[in-house]
């Protein structure tokens, strides 16, 4: 397929067009479409269409590490801002995850009863924002989409959420905005530096990567700003407290999207922007990120264990799982980083499915308290089976998707961080503890709550929502090669880009200093002992 | 000339103070009419004949009638003095004095350099009209649109309220 088809633009904006049409076509007006069922079918069709387009993108994608399906057009030429989109293996995989999850979420939207049309509108808008974020190759465009993700989520939690939704949604938005404002400042600084050095303005990532020269100190600060924005989104350990609240209060669909896609954006941001732009700054922060990731793994697992709210438990398990992704990312070798991206997909599927399952229970019983359940396996066997499968996927049992990701991450990161990885293995154990405890308390035992006696098993529609995820769990566990094959070259490109830029910056800075003030070099080396050594060793290992 | 100016100035200031100081709105309004007439006379002294006429007709005539009409329509009582109002009065007066104090040196320093071209211009209807329909045609038309919008707005405000009131 030719890139002049504008495949990516169609992909990104199809949901938006659908969202606008929801309001333009009088057929979907609440007075005509009383229960919103027409609007639901329509938006489902839009999401499926988007999925079809993403499959086309996959079909025209060649297996190599380059950016493909690139489209570029000037947007605000006076500031060098352009509309530039493109995908490599990593973003394509995440885009497919998004387009797969979206129909599932829309199918699950039957639990939303009020303002259906607005809900669907926000969901579709959110999809556009997510796809745009994943495809953007212009920093400004990325930022716009990044912030655009926030608005629909704000309304989804704030309007259709639970009892403490206002608190949760404010916390979510303020946390995220706090980070992303710093990121904006950093972006502007980088572009300013670029303009200073080249005499022209450009927000295009490839320009910034190729030609912006930053000093080590600048890099550290800029990476810190990016890391805060992305770290909050991931979320990395001390910035995670918005997540349980947001998850608990969000409606089912919101939780699924939040866990399934939004959390991935942090890691994606690190891969696409944070690490390549500021390789030496990142280098300095790797031990910190790694430590926080491991803390997050163990901490999330421990805290998840003592939760009594099912959604909160799953939310904390997300903190633990995303810790693995961060660990794999900062290990910076092909195995671990590929595993990290793969684990992003897994987490989207298994945790998304777990939230859907909780949603199924919540629709029937309107409580998320573990103590309110128990012995359900006898009453709702199909549900129990689904719950079991996704639980196992979540605790990374071999032949489910989770195992591949976790194994790749741990194997790869063991090479770089033997100690941290050994500690992270605690998470493997604790993961089984909290998930199986949850499963035992809800599914096993006597059916002692009278209200559970009238529970009905999953309906055909609900089965339809789980079916794609179920297939993916086993497919990705049994035969991950089609995905890994596309991820690996992209990850290799990422790693070599980081390495190359790091060397380039190092040489330029040294060269500049040698020209200007030779005596400074010695002072510089004295001031940051070890820095050069750390870099050289870890980059050598990243050849793996 | 100077005597006339002094008289007019005294009238303008006195009536302005009257607007602010008198309790009854009707009295304030009447003072304002006096003030406007005084200003109109000052315009005339500055050779702005057309403006002087318009000031009398539009301001003193039309707008003030409207204000008086509203005051009578609403049958407004005398304003009761307020405890915090005294502090506010003092504060406002103080601020005003400060303001004047700051302006005074400005006038003194800044305006000495001005040369006076007083004899060269005539604010006649003819001169005025020529400018309005050539250089200022667009603002003029825009102003007419503004007035139309204002009329529509005024009607809408009145009308909507009638509906609300009837409920």
């Amino acid at each position, binding site marked *: 397929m030719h890139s002049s088809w504008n495949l990516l633009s169609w992909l990104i904006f199809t949901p938006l067009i659908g969202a606008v049409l929801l309001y333009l076509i009088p057929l979907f007006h609440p007075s005509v479409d009383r229960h919103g069922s027409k609007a639901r079918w329509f938006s489902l069709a839009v999401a499926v269409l988007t999925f079809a387009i993403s499959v086309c993108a996959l079909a025209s994608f060649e297996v190599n590490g380059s950016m493909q399906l690139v489209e570029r057009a000037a947007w605000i030429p006076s500031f060098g801002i352009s509309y530039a989109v493109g995908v490599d293996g990593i973003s394509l995989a995440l885009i497919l995850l998004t387009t797969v999850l979206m129909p599932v979420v829309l199918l699950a939207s039957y639990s939303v009863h009020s303002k259906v049309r607005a809900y669907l509108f926000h969901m579709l808008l959110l999809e556009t924002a997510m796809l745009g974020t994943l495809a953007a190759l212009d920093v400004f465009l990325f930022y716009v989409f990044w912030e655009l993700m926030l608005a629909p989520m704000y309304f989804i939690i704030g309007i259709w959420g639970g009892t403490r939704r206002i608190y949760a949604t404010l916390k979510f938005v*303020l*946390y995220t905005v706090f980070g992303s404002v710093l990121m904006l400042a950093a972006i502007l600084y980088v572009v300013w530096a670029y303009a200073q050095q080249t005499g022209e303005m450009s927000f295009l990532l490839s320009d910034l990567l190729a030609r912006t020269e930053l000093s080590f100190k600048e890099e550290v600060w800029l990476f810190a700003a990016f890391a805060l924005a992305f770290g909050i989104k991931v979320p990395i350990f001390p910035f*995670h*407290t*918005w997540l*349980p609240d947001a998850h608990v209060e969000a409606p089912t669909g919101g939780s699924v999207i939040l866990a399934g896609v939004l959390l991935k954006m942090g890691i994606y941001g690190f891969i696409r922007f944070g690490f390549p732009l500021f390789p030496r700054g990142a280098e300095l922060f790797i031990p910190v990120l790694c430590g926080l990731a491991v803390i997050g793994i163990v901490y999330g697992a*421990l*805290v998840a264990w*003592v*939760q009594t709210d099912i959604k909160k438990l799953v939310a904390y398990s997300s903190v633990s799982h995303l810790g693995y992704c961060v660990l794999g990312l900062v290990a910076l*070798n*092909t*195995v671990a980083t*590929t*595993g990290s991206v793969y684990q992003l997909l897994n987490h989207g599927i298994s945790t998304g499915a777990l939230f859907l399952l909780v949603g199924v229970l919540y629709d029937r019983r309107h409580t998320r308290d573990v103590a309110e359940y*128990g*012995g359900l*396996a*006898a009453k709702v066997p199909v549900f129990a089976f689904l719950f079991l499968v996704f639980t*196992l996927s979540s605790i990374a*049992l*071999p*032949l489910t998707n989770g195992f*591949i990701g976790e*194994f*790749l991450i*741990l*194997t*790869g990161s*063991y090479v770089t961080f033997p100690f941290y*990885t*050994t500690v992270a*293995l*605690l998470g*493997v*154990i604790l993961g*089984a*503890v909290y998930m*199986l*405890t949850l499963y*035992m308390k809800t*599914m*096993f*035992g*006597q059916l002692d709550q009278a209200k559970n006696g009238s529970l009905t098993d999953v309906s055909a529609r609900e089965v339809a929502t789980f079916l794609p995820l179920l297939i993916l769990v086993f497919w990705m566990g*049994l*035969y*991950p*090669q089609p995905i*890994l094959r596309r*991820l*690996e070259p992209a990850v290799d490109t990422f790693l070599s880009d980081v390495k190359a830029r790091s060397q380039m910056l190092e040489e330029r800075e040294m060269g500049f200093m040698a020209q200007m003030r030779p005596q400074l070099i010695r002072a510089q080396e004295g001031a940051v002992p070890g820095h050069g050594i750390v870099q050289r060793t870890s980059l050598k290992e990243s050849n*793996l | 000339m100077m005597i006339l100016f002094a008289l007019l100035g005294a009238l303008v200031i006195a009536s302005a103070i009257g607007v602010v100081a008198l309790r009854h709105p009707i009295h304030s309004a009447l003072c304002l009419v006096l003030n406007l007439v005084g200003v109109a006379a000052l315009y005339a002294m500055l050779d702005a004949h057309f403006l002087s006429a318009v000031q009398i007709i539009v301001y003193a005539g039309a707008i003030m009638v409207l204000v008086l009409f509203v005051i009578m329509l609403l049958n407004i009582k005398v304003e009761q003095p307020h405890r915090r109002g005294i502090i*506010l009065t003092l504060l*406002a007066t103080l*601020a005003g004095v*400060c*303001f004047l104090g*700051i302006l005074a040196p*400005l006038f003194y320093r800044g305006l000495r350099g001005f040369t006076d071209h007083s004899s060269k211009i005539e604010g006649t209807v003819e001169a005025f009209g020529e400018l309005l329909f050539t250089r200022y045609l667009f603002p003029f038309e825009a102003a007419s649109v503004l007035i139309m919008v204002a009329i529509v707005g005024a009607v809408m405000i009145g009308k909507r309220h009638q509906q609300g009131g009837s409920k």
Partner: protein
Amino acid sequence: MERTNAALALIPLFPLVGSVAAFLVGRVHKRAAGIIASLASILAFVWTAKLFAAMSAETVLEDVVFSWFGVASLQVDFTLRMDALGAVMCLVVTGIGSLIHIYSTAYMAEDDSVHRFFSYLNLFMFSMLLLVLGGNLLVLFVGWEGVGLCSYLLIGFWFRTIDYAAAGRKAFVVNRIGDAGFLLGIFLLWMNFGTVDFLELEAAIAGNMTLVGLCTVVALCLFIGATGKSAQIPLFVWLPDAMAGPTPVSALIHAATMVTAGIYMMARMDFVFALAPFTLAIVTIVALLTAFVAATTALLQNDIKKVLAYSTVSQLGFMFLAASAGAYWVAIFHVVTHAFFKACLFLGAGSVIHGCHHEQDMRHMGGLSRYMPITFATYLVATLAIAGIFPFAGYQSKHAILGALEHNVNPYIAPYNSWIVALVTFTAFLTAFYMTRSLAMTFFGKYRGHAHPHESPAAMSGVLVALAVLSLFGGWFLETRLPNFLEHVLAVAPGHASETIVESLLHSWVGIAGVVLGLLFYTSLAGVPGLVFSLFKPIGVLFQRKWFVDELYQAILVRPLEGVSRGLWKAVDQGFIDGAVNGSGAVIDTSGQVLRLTQSGQVRHYALWMFVATIAIVVFFLVRS
């Protein structure tokens, strides 16, 4: 070594298909589930036997099913491989598995969710076969975790009782601890050798004395994995609880097959352990302790299945002892004979439980030999076998273990060989004693229960007879054939001289002594056990309460960890982090509240402020100029 391609994938495939079919068909036709599952299992056995018949001791059958996953230098194929060791294990798994399937069709006939049972059971067969056929560490690990899952599901099969479900969870979690160690071993091996394939690893490691340090660590990690799966100290606590599952499950998973996976893995990785004498010394000590502690615990249990469970733990200790002495074939030999007689014992216990209407407490049994003669006879044979009395199967394997321990050349252990042999002999004596106790309490004396015991149906008793026959002749049959068959895969010590029957009988004095003493204590001298118990009360209580290991773990591990978790959640998450977050929010809110006082909402105030601000701005510019 000749590597030949063969359709190995069919072996695990039969039970996998059977699992799905049994579940789907079984939902409609209860009886069909058992038949389908049994058929699948038998087919797997037949196919294994067919392949086995065609292979020689040196053959390695190989089947690369598909390339599983691969990133950079980490390329993993889904390889199945069957060499002599794999073939032996495969035959045991499918053979014993088929028998237990058949037994289960009768045992579980009255259960409501029999389709679920057989589905899980076949799934277990699938995983176990992957475990023994896996050609690399990861396929083995798939089976390793898979059997753990099935064990979890089957222990908690009667999930309506929350304790059973909790036992399943305990099994899974404890196994996971071992698995973490196992994973660590895999990481180390991959990191250093860039492969996880057994043959490639063997080629890289075997006999390379420079790798001793690495191998010590790797072997330790792998052994941690083995302690989890094969219930050794410190991770043995799950196995007694696992008796919550249906009895055929206990027989298949928790006696005959799954728990021996650790031994199998050790034998499979013998080239690593061979370079790690220090680790082997640790294995010896752990296994010795496990064998002894479990045997003492078994002495005073009243639940018939608990006795067998602790006996299994103890026997697994024996196997590890053999393996740690480098006599892997002996360990595998004991795995096989143990599978025969322990399956027989468990199924016999199941038959008793079935006959006594789900009574498991031996104090409410007794005199059952009259009601269920076949069960009694087979139980007797198996008891004599486990006691290690000639010519029953246990004799040959136990004798070989003691022989191996006597000639242990491990530099860390060799000086204490005689002590170890003495303790093992004593443990063997205890084994004979407590097994005789359970035999006597169950089948001798007067019936003390209230039910109406009856013999089990033919499907059950037939299987019992088959296993009893194996327990009777299995050891004798395999004694020379097994080492010959395994010698190309495992190090086999030069065979000991054959002995006469009299010598053999003399060598079984330990077992005979145990059996005789047990018979005396629990039939004619019925008052003696109580007397002995009251004499050594503290020790007795210690044994009876299982050395307080569960309580200990609960107190030093589980509770503190839960407390810490709760503390982290309340103090760090909600207190500290959210405190900081909400605190900064509150600061902004408060300052807003203060500033709000300036906002009176009255236009004239705002006007005044505007005026003041204008003055301020003008002043600012005046001062600047």
